[in-house]
């Protein structure tokens, strides 16, 4: 599904796997040591039959009890040695390889956290997750087994063939005959298999995404009774994965069968030719037997290469998938940024947008930018409301201030310093944000709020909770220590939003960005929050995205955003008078091109002057008002 991949570089299996080196390097001694131990163990394994042969030919045949004891002792010692070597090999790699897996995962996590938001918009988290789990586990297994045994078995086969060629070179050549076709087959296999393996892994990622969405969207699925169609969609995906896996198995079956068949046929040919040679007297029967038993002993190492290659192939794909994400560049910090942060001195707080333009990095070239020619000066201590129709770019504009997205042209300055010249860390310390979607993390309520400020204490927490009218936190089962988020108590939308607001104000930030911060609050609470928020806004520079007149009331001035441009800036009253669009947004009344008479004196308390309610209703006449009236009234205030 997410076919948007970061240029799938065409690397060979080996090239891909070589990229693991930086992670393997710290444990290279252990890993190579383990390979040596594995070779030693297989040598011991080869010596044991020789001792048996010696016992049978020697002491047993000679009826020599002492020799028998000695032989058995040798056998026992070799056996203990072999067992010990096996253990040592595994012991050597167990913790280090678990460490390699963990450090790759930690790196991936660290990297992903620092990738731009635009990247995360593009990549479903399921795809990222399957890289962090399934793919990395595969790589650990690869380092533990296939890598070592490709070496060991490869060496064994090589040595075996040297021995074979030395014993009888003509027969040796016969045995070598299948090597060329096998290699070609393996190459063909590699190409085909890597494509299928990649497809399978991507499909697992897609499946993960569907599982994740079906959990995150469970209320919608249940609300509409769609779990059957969802299950059907899931089934289609799993069946597709099954088809891919079966295609993988088909390829695997083919290569395994060839790897079993071809050498075996060669041995058969060698047997017939050898027998003829023995019959002709060119070869001793003993040599033929020795030759063939060596050849048979090589069967396992050769056969194993088939699945070892398949595992390597899958690991190479996993490596590619891993680096596909790791190769995406983190956002660079501006060079020479030290000391560029605004003065610590007298707190000012001026925020200026100069010719800011923004288009998403993946937007069609030539398409309209999301934001264009944004010029906006927010004076120190001022609160600017951002009003605009749904989809006019308000949220995008707020995302530019903490640099969740970077403006594609123009600049944003805080107290005269370009925000791109500041370290992100510092910028985000200065600018505090409350998002429209109030995400809480798996941590205590207090911790969630205090995320907004380093070093803030109990008092700050209490103050912030009070401002956001989030005092309910004290009444939770474990008070402000109560776990919330993914793994904790689930709070209502309104409660989450208030905590997110508390988080934004806790650090008394110089700049505050609030994206529709009161949308989920009930009227009563909203009024209380607004009252408390006014104090905070008085001493900070703020942008507040507002959908409603009540929120606009928090602001000193209003900027009207229309299709990505600032259409007008002014006070609420000015805009109501001067901008039809603004009046429409605030009142919802259609066709109010010329905003009708606005009260001359803004402080005149309740003189609704909306067109449909010409005569100001008294308090008790209120119920007769239609919704439009109320809204229009609200708007004029």
């Amino acid at each position, binding site marked *: 599904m997410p076919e948007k991949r970061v240029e799938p570089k065409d690397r060979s299996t080996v090239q891909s796997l070589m990229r693991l080196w930086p992670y393997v390097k710290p444990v290279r001694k252990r890993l190579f040591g383990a390979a040596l131990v594995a070779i030693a163990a297989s040598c011991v394994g080869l010596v*044991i039959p020789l001792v048996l042969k010696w016992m049978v030919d020697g002491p*047993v045949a000679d009826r020599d009890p002492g020799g028998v004891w000695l032989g058995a002792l040798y056998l026992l010692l070799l056996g203990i040695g072999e067992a010990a070597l096996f253990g040592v090999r595994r012991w050597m790699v167990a913790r280090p390889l678990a460490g390699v897996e963990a450090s790759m995962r930690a790196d991936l996590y660290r990297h992903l956290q620092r990738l731009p938001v635009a990247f995360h918009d593009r990549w479903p988290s399921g795809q990222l997750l399957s890289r962090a*789990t399934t793919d990395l586990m595969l790589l650990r297994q690869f380092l533990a087994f296939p890598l070592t045994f490709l070496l060991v078995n490869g060496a064994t086969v090589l040595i075996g063939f040297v021995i074979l060629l030395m014993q009888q070179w003509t027969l040796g050549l016969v045995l070598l005959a299948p090597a060329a076709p096998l290699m070609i087959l393996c190459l063909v296999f590699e190409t085909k298999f890597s494509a299928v393996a990649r497809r399978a892994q991507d499909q697992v990622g897609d499946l993960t995404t569907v599982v994740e969405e079906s959990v995150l969207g469970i209320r919608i699925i249940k609300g509409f009774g769609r779990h059957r169609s969802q299950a059907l969609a899931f089934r289609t995906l799993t069946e597709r994965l*099954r088809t891919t896996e*079966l295609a993988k198995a088909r390829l695997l079956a083919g290569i395994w069968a060839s790897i079993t068949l071809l050498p075996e046929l060669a041995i058969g040919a060698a047997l017939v030719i050898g027998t003829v040679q023995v019959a002709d007297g060119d070869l001793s029967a003993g040599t033929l037997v020795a030759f063939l038993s060596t050849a048979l002993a090589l069967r396992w190492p050769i056969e194993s290469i088939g699945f070892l290659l398949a595992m390597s192939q899958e690991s190479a794909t996993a490596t590619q998938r891993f680096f596909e994400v790791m190769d995406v560049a983190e956002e660079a910090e501006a060079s020479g940024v030290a000391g560029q942060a605004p003065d610590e001195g007298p707190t000012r707080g001026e925020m200026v947008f100069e010719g800011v333009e923004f288009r*998403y990095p993946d937007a069609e070239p030539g398409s309209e930018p999301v934001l264009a020619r944004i010029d906006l000066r927010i004076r120190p201590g001022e609160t600017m409301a951002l009003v605009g129709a749904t989809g006019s770019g308000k949220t995008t504009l707020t995302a530019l201030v*903490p640099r969740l997205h970077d403006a594609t042209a123009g600049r944003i300055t805080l107290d005269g310093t370009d925000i791109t010249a500041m370290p992100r860390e510092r910028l985000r310390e200065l600018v505090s944000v409350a998002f429209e979607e109030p995400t809480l993390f798996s941590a205590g309520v207090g911790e969630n709020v205090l995320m907004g400020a380093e070093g803030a204490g109990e008092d700050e927490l209490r103050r912030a909770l009070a401002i956001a009218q989030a005092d309910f936190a004290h009444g939770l089962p474990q008070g402000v220590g109560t776990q919330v988020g993914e793994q904790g108590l689930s709070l209502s939308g309104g409660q989450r939003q208030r905590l997110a607001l508390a988080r934004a104000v806790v650090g008394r930030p110089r700049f505050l960005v609030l994206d529709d911060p009161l949308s989920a609050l009930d009227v009563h609470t909203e009024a209380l929050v607004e009252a408390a928020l006014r104090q905070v806004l008085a001493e900070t520079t703020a942008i507040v995205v507002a959908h409603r007149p009540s929120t606009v009331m928090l602001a000193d001035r209003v900027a009207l955003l229309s299709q990505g441009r600032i259409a007008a800036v002014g006070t609420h009253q000015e805009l109501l008078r001067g901008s039809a669009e603004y009046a429409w947004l605030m009142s919802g009344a259609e066709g109010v091109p010329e905003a009708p008479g606005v009260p001359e004196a803004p402080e005149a308390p309740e003189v609704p002057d909306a067109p449909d309610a010409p005569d100001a209703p008294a308090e008790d006449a209120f119920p007769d008002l239609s919704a439009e009236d109320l*809204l229009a009234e609200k708007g004029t205030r």
Partner: protein
Amino acid sequence: MTSTTTDTVPAEDPPGTGTTTAPAPTGPEAADDRFDRDDLPTPPGATGSLLRSLLRPMKARVALIALLLLVQQAAIQAGPLLVAYAIDSGVPAFRDADYGPLIAVGVGYALCSAAAGAMQFAFVRVAALVSQDALLDLRGRIFRHAQALSVDFHERYTSGRLISRSTTDVESLRELLGEGLQELIGVFLSFVSIAVMLLWLDLGLGSLAVLSFVPLYLLVRRFQRRAGALYGERSSAIAAVIVKFAETMNGIRPVQAFRREPVNDAHFESLNATHRWANGSAMLEMARYVVGSRLVANAAVAGIVLWGAYRVASGTLALGVLAAAVLYLRRLYDPIDRLGMFLNSYQSAAASLGKIAGLLAQTPSVPETPSPKELPARTGEAPGREVVFDGVRFAYRTGGEVLPRFDLTIPAGQTVAVVGSTGAGKSTLAKLLARFYDPTDGRVLLDGTDLRDLAVPELRRGVVMVTQEAFLFSGTVAENIAIGDPDATREEIERAAEAIGAHDFISGLPDGYDTDVRKRGGRISAGQRQLVGFARALLANPAVLILDEATSSLDVPGERAVQRAMDTVLHGRTAVVIAHRLSTVEIADRVLVMEHGRIVEDGTPSELIAGTGRFAGLHRAWRESLT
């Protein structure tokens, strides 16, 4: 707008339940340890029976696999015999110009090779079929079961855990079935055949070899026990890693805005370290098993050879028999490593299957009825239906009462607004009506039929709920709207979008209705998502519509478009609107004010505003907030 008179009064508190609750915790009981530890109770034997039930439909194929492996072994083991025949008979015959035996050897060898290759080919494919079908079955079961579980389950069992159940845990079963099956059958076959061969060669030596199985068996048991615990730890550890990972990636904006990266790094590091340790320990346990079993095997070989050699020396055993026995002995113990590999994947699969079985053993608290009833045919013209809460009480399982017993009747076609502060029980009321929860006591009736007696499709023709979080699924905008009615035509979808005022912004997207919401240009604001959510509801065309703070992110024109749609498209439907904006309340026929789980006021908006109750107060506060 017609105002309906109050036809129900909030029920009096039953004695004893009067003093409930600070309204704060809205979730089910605060912290359920089992959920925290990712350790749901697995019924005894559930793991094994899950595995059996997965493999049962494939008995024939498993038997076929055994047969294939048997034939393949035979074909491969025939090799040495042919060598012997070639040397013993082929050579002399060839010298006599009788090429028959040699040709027979050549043909025989070629046939055996071909058979071995063919069996290998067939085996891989059949084994893949078995494992893929089992996985398909298991994935489907987890998915369907998770979907059937109620919303309150999902609120506690995090999405990360469900993902890890259906990915890493399923993956370990894949390993078991992929490689493990071959190991197990292969090990079993060679153990039996070689043991029989040894016993046939010499009863004494054979018995000694079989006796050595006892310590091996004990080792296997010990390994199984210890590794079982370790793999369980490992599986929980990776689930914790996944939860953290998913939470971070899904909340990347606040993560970056609040500079959580270093703190998250440290936390992830510690979760990751737990997993690394569990992982390493599991691998070390395997190392211990391998050493132990090798040691037993090699000691047994030494012992048997010693005894055998002694007997040969004392003349009670033929030399050839000893030679053959020794060769077979080596082979006898060869599969031990493979047994270890099998146990390895079995243990890890068992741990995973245990967790999956625990999940599958959760009974949905809102089960679908086995004998569904149909809703009665609509009586009047209007599409709405009557809703009755009949003696309904709702409490969490731990006993925290959210809604004390109450009765409420909403006549067909009425629009009811529910207001009250957060935690007053508004959402719980809505969830009971949407059957996200079932009442602890009493019944919720739709035109006289208990919601519990309705099959899901029938229920959703009756009641649809639009919530505040308007989640969009991967796919196009049109597909997202079509969730309301999968059979809807494009025209119907567009009409729904138009009615709700979403058509304009959708047309403005790069590919219009076919814009993929997760792709290029598919960025959709929270307000726009809510509009899509509404279009869904419109398309679903239910008799009863519940809006749970569903307009919170809309701007005023958006909200008005929704209200217009409710007036026109949804006219005549029964509606329950939970809203913060009193402007929304204004379109209601009736207002319920809730406090601490009780309906404290009930009447038409005008009645309540005119009165002196809470709503009048709220309304005054709201009006004051306008100045």
